[in-house]
């Protein structure tokens, strides 16, 4: 709890306490704990003197602000047509098998969450995915196993 209020304070020092600070604050919370809890939204609302409904309304609009519990590493696999045509399905199956979860789920140890996302702008190097902010391209079934293994050990 305390940590989030600290994040809010620090961000407000940096960008002010106007409504324009909302997305930067939410992004900072995302960076720290990978999702924004309902209680955090209330804290943010208080700090910016707006309604909690406004904070939720804004949070839920954006696909990179998670409002449900999310693992430490958020995998976003691109589902746009070019990646799809380049074998995204097989890659996705390999990830699901490796993590033993389905698309949209979080692993038991809360380490990984697997989600689809729209075009990542990496079409010339597809299939592509992001893990948190880091891009991975030209994925194959072998490569994703290696990548996940590496993240497991981080």
């Amino acid at each position, binding site marked *: 709890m305390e940590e989030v209020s600290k994040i809010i304070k620090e961000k407000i020092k940096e960008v002010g306490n*106007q*409504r*324009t*600070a*909302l*997305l*930067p604050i*939410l*992004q900072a919370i995302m960076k720290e704990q990978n999702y924004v809890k309902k209680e955090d939204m209330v804290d943010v609302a208080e700090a*910016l003197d707006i309604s909690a409904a406004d904070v939720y*309304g*804004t949070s839920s*609009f*954006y*696909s*990179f*602000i998670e409002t449900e519990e999310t693992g430490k590493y958020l995998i976003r696999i691109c*589902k*746009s*047509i*070019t990646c*799809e*045509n380049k074998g995204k399905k097989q890659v996705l199956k390999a990830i699901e098998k490796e993590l033993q979860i389905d698309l949209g789920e979080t692993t038991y140890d809360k380490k990984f969450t697997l989600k689809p*996302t*729209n*075009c*990542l*702008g*990496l*079409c*010339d*190097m*597809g299939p592509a995915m*992001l893990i948190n*902010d*880091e*891009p991975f391209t030209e994925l194959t079934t072998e490569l994703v196993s290696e990548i996940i293994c590496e993240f497991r050990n981080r």
Partner: protein
Amino acid sequence: MSNKGLRKVDILFSQYSVAPYQILKQTMKKNKADVLTEINESGLRGRGGAGFPTGMKWQIMADEKAEEKYIICNADEGEPGTFKDRKLLVEVPRKVISGMAIAAWITNSTKGYIYLRAEYNYLIPALKKELEVFEEYSKQFGLDFPIEIFSGSGAYVCGEETALIESMEGKRGEPRNKPPFPTQEGYLGKPTLVNNVETLASVSMVCRYGSEKYKSLGTDAQRGSKLFSLSGDSPKEGVHEFELGMKVSDFVAEYGDGDTKAIQVGGVAGYCIPRKNFENTIIGEGNTTGGATMIFNSTRSMYNVIHNYLEFFVEESCGQCTPCRVGTQQLLKGIEAVKVGDKPECYLQDLIKLSKTMKITSKCGLGQSVTNSFTSIITNFPEEMIY
């Protein structure tokens, strides 16, 4: 129809001048009105998709009187199949930032923002470094124009300039009614100029080479050079730069894999051109937008293609206006129903009508452009839509 063939050019990714920000320095020695005339005469149009004349937008912005005025670089390229702005920001960010600075100088703007899509967050460290270089040089040139990076949070519709501004103001990225246009009332109610990454880089190039040379490229409808993000069934995927005005058949001959069935020009908001029309369609006349070009060969199902596009639109519709929110869902349900035989083939015609209604009644470009790919795919590949 004017066919100039396939003419590759190397302008936007050409080498930097030896000393940083020389284009900006040289430009600032001139008269502001003269530079604006140059940009107007170059015929440059917005490279984000809508194609509004850049010089005219700048003129309107320059005429606005306010103490605070903002320049926003729109780096929220979310159109599926588009990645040219990423390449510009990675390889020649200096040209983009110079474009912003020239805009600020001409229009007396006080602050700049780069609205960077969340998917490109990994570019931030390098961009910040470049902004430090810019700060050092702009001070030397006597230009007080700080630039900040504003990170987006994953919403396609925020590429629309008023939705982008709403998002920067901490709200849901829902497009505003126009007028007032952002140049009149934009970010925080102040005059705001929103330009695409490639547009700003192109301005730098107009300033470097002069409007005469720039104008000599392209056709009457589209002047200058344009970047194409090419992906799909092609051995030469990547970003390519051309003069506008080449036949699709020339393009496919050079970049296809020999088995090209259709080509999507302008991303999913653009048009799908089938093989039979390659010969008589010119890229850059009535069809070009952001330059996203996807090639499909004969192994691809066009039903899967349009299904994928519609899923995208359903998800990215901001939900504010009914024609777009409900229309996109109904189109998706509709083609699924025809595919499994729950609806007859002629139902596709009703869906086309619906998409055309969306074009007239939707609030922003998202809902208005669904019909482009929808109608062109359904009309040209009806046999693939039925079971």
